[in-house]
Each structure stands twice: as C-alpha cells, then as structure tokens.
C-alpha cells in the first residue's frame, strides 16, 4: 500500500474555497467594510460589489439580476421558496405540494413542517436507479397543487433528475416549480428560462465558495412573502446586512465554475469512472444511482458486510475524507433515506461509501484511493460477523 496521502473526497459535503475566491473576498473582509445600504462612497462600493455578484449569479443561471436574492445558504433558500409559495397559495385554497422522497432534509423537513401546519404533501417515489419519473409528477398534480419541488441532482447518489421535462410539465399545468440545485450548480449546465424553472436554490460552499451564503432565484412576477423580515436589503425581500465578502465569493465561484464547465466536467467524469471501475470488482458491492445520469464527481458504492462509520474512520486514518449513508455516522437509527428510497436493504445501506470529487481532486488522489480502499474493506470484513454470515449463506 502506498504512503499515506491526504485525499479530500467529500466535496458534496463542502469544498475548499479556491484561491481566486479567497483573493476576491479578502478586500471585503478588510478595507471594504462599508454597509451596502450606506450612501457614502464606502457603502456604495460594497453595494456595487453585491450588484456585480448578483449579475454573476444571474448570468450563470440564465436569469436576470433582479431575480436573484442572496441568502445564508441552500437551506434558507429551500425554506424560503417552499414555505413562501405554500403560504401564498394557501390563501387561494391550494394546499398541496409535490416533492420526492429523496430530497435533501432542507426540503423534506420543510415539507414535514408544512404538513404539520395542515398542508398535504405528496412524496414521489424514485426508481432503483434513483430517478424521479415525469409521469409520476404528472399524475400527482391536482387542482389544488401549489408547488412541485424536485431536486436537480441528488446529494448522496448524484443522480440527475429530468428537470427540463418537469419544468415543461409544470408550466403547462400552471403549477410553480422549485428545484434544489445545490449539487447541480457548477456541475451541470443550467438555464432557468429554457428549463422553465420558477424557483431555484443554490449554495456557495459546494462550488469552492464560502460557507454561509447562497441564493434563491425567484422568477420575476412571483411574489414570495419574506422568511426574514426587516431592513430593505434584497429589494425588501430578505432583511439583514449583506454578507458582502461571502456574496462576492459566491459570484466569483459560480462564474469560474460555469465558465469552464465542459472541460471541468469531462475531467471529473473521467476520474469518477476510473474510481468506479476500480472499485466495482470488489466482491459483493454495487454502484448506487444511475451510472449515466449522474453528477460528474459522484461515486456511491455499497459494500456488503461493512458498516459505514467504521469505514469512514478507517479511511480517515489513511488520510481519506469521505462520507457514508450509515445511520451510525449521524447518530440516528435509520440509514440514509436516499439509499432506502432506491430499495437498498438497511444493512446494505449501512455499508455505503460516497466519494465526491472536485477540481481539487487529482489523478494521484484517485490512484491512492484505489490502492487503499480494497484493503480497508477486506480488513473490516475480516472482523465482521455480518460478512461471515453473508459468505456462509452464499
């Protein structure tokens, strides 16, 4: 086995801020401290920086700058979009929302909260490849449906949903369409107009931007009630002194990501495929999620007889940062709702490993992971009574 190397393969959890983003942020953490709402020059400079970032985010999505609202991250954007639409349409008697069973918790728990308030939620199933069916969306839409919210790409298994088709369907049926694109932005081409997306959530820290800043795209003409009331920031729609440095960082991060998307995605896909092909020969393992309709940097494999947390801790000892769908890592009792949704038995879901790559991942990193992981699986299986049972049963 190779010498220990540090390999960060958890880019779907968060990414390292790129040098370009950091350098762009520093002036706003130092001398550019003016409040964008202030009328003197120091305030105006900050306001211009925020405006520029708004233009950058808009350009990356094919939106208009005034359709972009900065938030504290993806979770706030999801909450705002879904609760906002729900409460607006409830007044018109429309209290039905459609989403999928395998959304991020920022969407699922928001829908749960609305359910407790009296809204009705349809949770669409996903097939064993991790895809939502447009037909299912179609059948679920009712007279009183206020919103369809389906994620652009899943954060655990990386599957990319038929967003354009759902957009067209919702448009035709005159139902608003929100997509949580936190994992998709920067990794897949997006055009909110062509794809007929009404609301879209994104987060900076998944694309080499800072943590604690994100945005909601809200199509012109849709009036959402505020989630955070107060000052006149964001056109009076989202109060709070702007996180200028963070917003500037988001602007630079999204611009860099979208500018070079085809090359970057191609490189990531090649790394991803080499990793998948190198791991799949391991006995009794399976790739989770569709192989083609998949984020360029996502690998998610279940190894039978292995428990995720101990796998992660062992990999950490080898310098590899990764994540898992095991309940044990989260302190909850049930393993990942995403893996259960695609039909994995709980005991197999426990043994899943997500390796998520980014621009920071090198060929050598992939080599290293391929040299380490099989041995780690073998070692853990050697001490696993579950593996013993699986082997003896076969």
């Amino acid at each position, binding site marked *: 086995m190779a010498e220990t190397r540090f390999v960060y393969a958890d880019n779907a959890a968060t990414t390292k801020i790129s040098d370009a983003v950091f350098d762009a942020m520093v002036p706003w953490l130092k001398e550019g401290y003016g409040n964008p709402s202030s009328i003197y020059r120091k305030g105006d400079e900050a306001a211009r920086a925020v405006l520029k970032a708004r233009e950058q985010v808009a350009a990356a999505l094919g939106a208009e700058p005034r359709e972009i609202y900065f938030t504290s991250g993806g979770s706030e954007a999801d909450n705002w979009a879904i609760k906002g639409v729900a409460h607006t349409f409830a007044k018109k008697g429309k209290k039905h929302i459609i989403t999928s069973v395998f959304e991020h918790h920022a969407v699922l728990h928001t829908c749960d909260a609305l359910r407790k308030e009296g809204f009705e939620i349809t949770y669409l199933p996903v097939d064993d490849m991790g895809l939502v069916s447009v037909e299912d969306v179609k059948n679920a839409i009712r007279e009183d449906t206020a919103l369809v919210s389906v994620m652009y790409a899943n954060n655990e298994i990386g599957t990319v949903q038929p967003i354009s088709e759902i957009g067209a369907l919702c448009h035709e049926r005159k139902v608003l369409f929100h997509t949580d694109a936190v994992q998709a932005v920067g990794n897949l081409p997006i055009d909110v107009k062509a794809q007929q997306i009404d609301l879209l959530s994104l987060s900076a820290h998944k694309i080499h931007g800072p943590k604690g800043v994100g945005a909601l795209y809200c199509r012109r003409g849709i009036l959402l009630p505020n989630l955070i009331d107060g000052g006149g920031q964001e056109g009076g729609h989202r109060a709070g002194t702007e996180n200028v440095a963070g917003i500037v960082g988001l602007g630079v991060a999204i611009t860099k990501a979208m500018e070079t998307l085809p090359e970057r995605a191609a490189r990531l896909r090649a790394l991803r495929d080499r990793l998948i092909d190198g791991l799949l020969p391991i006995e009794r393992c399976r790739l989770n999620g569709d192989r083609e309709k998949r984020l360029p940097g996502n690998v998610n494999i279940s190894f039978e007889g292995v428990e995720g*947390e101990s796998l992660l801790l062992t990999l950490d000892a080898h310098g590899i940062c990764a994540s898992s769908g095991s309940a*044990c890592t989260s302190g909850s009792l049930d393993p990942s709702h995403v893996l259960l949704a695609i039909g994995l038995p709980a005991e197999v879901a426990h043994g899943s490993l997500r390796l998520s790559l980014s621009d920071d991942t090198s060929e050598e990193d992939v080599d290293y992971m391929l040299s380490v992981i099989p041995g780690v699986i073998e070692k853990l299986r050697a001490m696993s009574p579950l593996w013993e049972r699986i082997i003896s049963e076969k």
Partner: protein
Amino acid sequence: MLYSDKVMDHFTNPRNVGELADANGIGEVGNAKCGDIMKMYIKVDKGVITDVKFKTFGCGAAIATSSMATEMIKGKTIEDALKLTNKAVVEALEGLPPVKIHCSVLAEQAVRAAVADYYKRLGIDPGPIVGEIGDCHACSHDE
C-alpha cells in the same frame, strides 16, 4: 463526533479481534438493520475466561467497546465477567458521545450471551445465572 483518544486507540488497534477455534462459549447480539452486530467468543477453563475474541460489524464505538470489553474480561472469572457493565466499559474508554451509549450496551450483552452459551453447552440453564440478555434499547427493530 468527538470520540476520545482511548476510543480511537481501541478502534484503530482493536485488541482480541478474530475467532477462537476452541471457544466453548459464543454469543451474538445486535441487528444488521441498525448497523450493529457483535459476536463474542470465550474460552472458559475452571471458571476462568482464559481467552476471548470478538468480531463486530458496527460503528467506531461498537468496535472500540467490543475491544475494551474483551480486555476487561480476559483472565477474569465468569462471575466477575458477568459483573461487567456498559458503564464500566464507557468509563474505561474515557467516555462516549451520548448517541453511542447503546453500542456499549451491546458489548455488555455480547459478554453475557457468550457466557449463556457456555452454560448451555454444559447442559446448564443459563437463565438463573446470566439473567435476561434483553434487546437493544435503542430501537424497536426486530430480527
């Protein structure tokens, strides 16, 4: 997760891992659905546990508590081994995060299950000696 150094030590270098060919007591507890199965092998000679090994499918805490439990009962009499509590294991490991306490319960139960099996093989009803092994209190999953 904030595991103690002691937990990490026992996780990284688990003591007494493996199977025991000449074990005369084997106990298995836990549930794969919850991500935890512990199997304990003991070799009892004249009422003393002369050797012990374990295999565990589970989280860092599950592996570390198994390892620590084997160390704590090795060389002890059966009576002393039955006095091992999950609390003692947690203390010996310098603490566990609250959500991981159930993993230590599993270690205590694995020891009792192995002793129960030892008595059963001798044709002795383990019930009155070992008591109820009980289920994991953390969940309601049934096998």
